[in-house]
């Protein structure tokens, strides 16, 4: 069976991200998964065990400062060289900013088609994508070259399938053009121990109704009780209540958790764009006419400052 290259999303702090395990699971329908680790020296060794557990027969290591110290371009070069030498059946990347950017460069280098934001992939390379704020579903195919597909986090449940996980070091040969954009600093902003927003199985989001940055503690507390991530509407972000990287919606993150909790969010179409494929949606809003109730499986019409603390107490009691 042909190899399927899975470009690994991982970080020193979070380890191998769930979307990587999903990709390894999805890849098995198309061939034998091989993981590609791109990062600083020693990156592959740190992640090898997990990657092998989820089916990586081979683990290609493209490591070093030349890969890690510059923005995206060297990574695309390493993957393109690997594609030329192993002739894989497909290349899967995560639907994150960087995953998409590598995919874009790869497509140009190989003069190949690409599909982004797939939620499923058939054995013949047909991808399923949600478009227009999740209001429609399309099936699409790459018609030129091999399938280069980015997979949206939370598309499937990772299934372990232990494999050899043999690490193979790649020779990294990047050009000067690949090194035009230098990464001079990486800054982590506080998030605590909460799961990654796009990967979380529970997301608790606050909107303008939360009314202040300070009050977002209420949202955080409820999220922590449920083991979820925190999200925010654009109005909440624009008002300075919560940082932009947690924005859910059209111009923020797309999430598709098992449970989405909307607190003080009206449910504008652009917000729905980022959350309406969630499995279960619950909402608390004091306006009975708020559009969020049109899609909520369970809605409470009421003041979130009364409802949420009571709900938090109730969860604590049940623990």
């Amino acid at each position, binding site marked *: 069976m042909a190899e399927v290259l899975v470009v690994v999303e991982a970080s020193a702090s979070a380890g191998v991200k769930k979307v990587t395990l999903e990709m390894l699971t999805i890849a098995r329908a198309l061939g034998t998964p091989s993981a590609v680790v791109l990062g600083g020296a020693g990156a592959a060794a740190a992640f090898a065990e997990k990657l092998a557990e989820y089916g990586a027969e081979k683990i290609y290591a493209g490591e070093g400062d030349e890969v890690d110290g510059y*923005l995206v371009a060297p990574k695309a070069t390493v993957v393109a060289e690997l594609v030329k030498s192993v002739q894989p059946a497909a290349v899967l990347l995560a639907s994150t900013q960087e995953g998409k950017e590598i995919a874009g460069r790869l497509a140009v280098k190989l003069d190949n088609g690409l599909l*982004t934001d797939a939620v499923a992939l058939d054995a013949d390379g047909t991808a399923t994508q949600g478009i227009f704020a999740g*209001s429609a579903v399309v099936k699409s195919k790459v018609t*030129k070259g091999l399938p280069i597909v980015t997979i949206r986090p939370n598309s499937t449940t990772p299934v372990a399938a232990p494999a050899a996980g043999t690490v193979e070091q790649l020779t990294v040969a990047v050009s000067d053009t690949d090194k035009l954009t230098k990464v001079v600093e990486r*800054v982590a902003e506080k998030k605590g121990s909460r799961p990654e927003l*796009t990967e979380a199985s529970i997301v608790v989001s606050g909107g303008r109704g939360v009314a202040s940055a300070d009050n977002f503690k209420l949202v955080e507390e409820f999220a922590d009780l449920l083991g979820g991530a925190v999200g925010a509407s654009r109005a909440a972000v624009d008002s300075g209540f919560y940082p*932009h990287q947690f924005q859910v919606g059209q111009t923020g993150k797309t999430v598709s958790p098992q449970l989405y909790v909307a607190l003080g969010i009206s449910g504008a179409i652009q917000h729905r764009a980022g959350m309406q494929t969630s499995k279960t949606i619950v909402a608390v809003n004091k306006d009975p006419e708020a559009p969020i109730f049109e899609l909520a499986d369970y809605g409470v019409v009421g003041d979130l400052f009364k409802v949420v603390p009571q709900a938090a107490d109730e969860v604590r009691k049940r623990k």
Partner: protein
Amino acid sequence: MNIVVLVKQVPDSGAERTLSASDNTVERASASNVINEMDEYAIEEALKIKEAHGGEVTVLTMGPAGATESIRKALSMGPDKAVHVTDDALHGSCAVATSKVLAAALGTLNADLIIAGAESTDGRVQVLPHMLAERLGIAALTGARKLTVDGSQLTAERQTDEGYEVVTAATPAVVSVWDTINEPRYPSFKGIMAAKKKPVQTLSLADLGIAADEVGTAGATSTVVDFAQRPPRSAGTKVTDEGDGGAQLVAYLATEKFV
């Protein structure tokens, strides 16, 4: 500094959007079309740089004839001129082909700085800026929430899931921006009047030396094979808080095994 801003016209994300029944491409003809929202931030950033460092701002759009409406709107914010790549053969172009066409057009414009939105709201592919950098062999600083220009040196704060990265490069470069970078200005009445007289150059595929079968539906590197509207979600239970709303909510979460 010679700045080119990439502006795409897209169907309004607040209105009904669909694919055309005949060829599964984005229905643009009957849609309510607007400037891709993120591109307004790109225009604003270009204008701010021009105001601080001097130079010229050119809007570059690839799109159908009707995209002139968005081009005039963009010009009313303040750019000096525009280039509109338009050709019937471009209909149905994939991202790979779009990058080929825009790269060819950029080849004629000699830009120091190319500013794009981080993503378009129709495709949301987020790939164009790096594709262009790849084709042009220049630097890319993408996903910027802050940009500093110091002579030919660019420094950007690139937003990441963990926080941000500080990235640097020298011009020429492609920069893409998020909506956190600035607050786009509203066109003034004077701006709107002036925009009517600003030069808009149109370029065809022949002008760019690109064959019709390299782009559009003919040259597409991917295709939509099936399209279906997702049935809308239906509303579930709605209760009014009578003092036990929180408890009721958790009771529901418990039946669904979330607590």
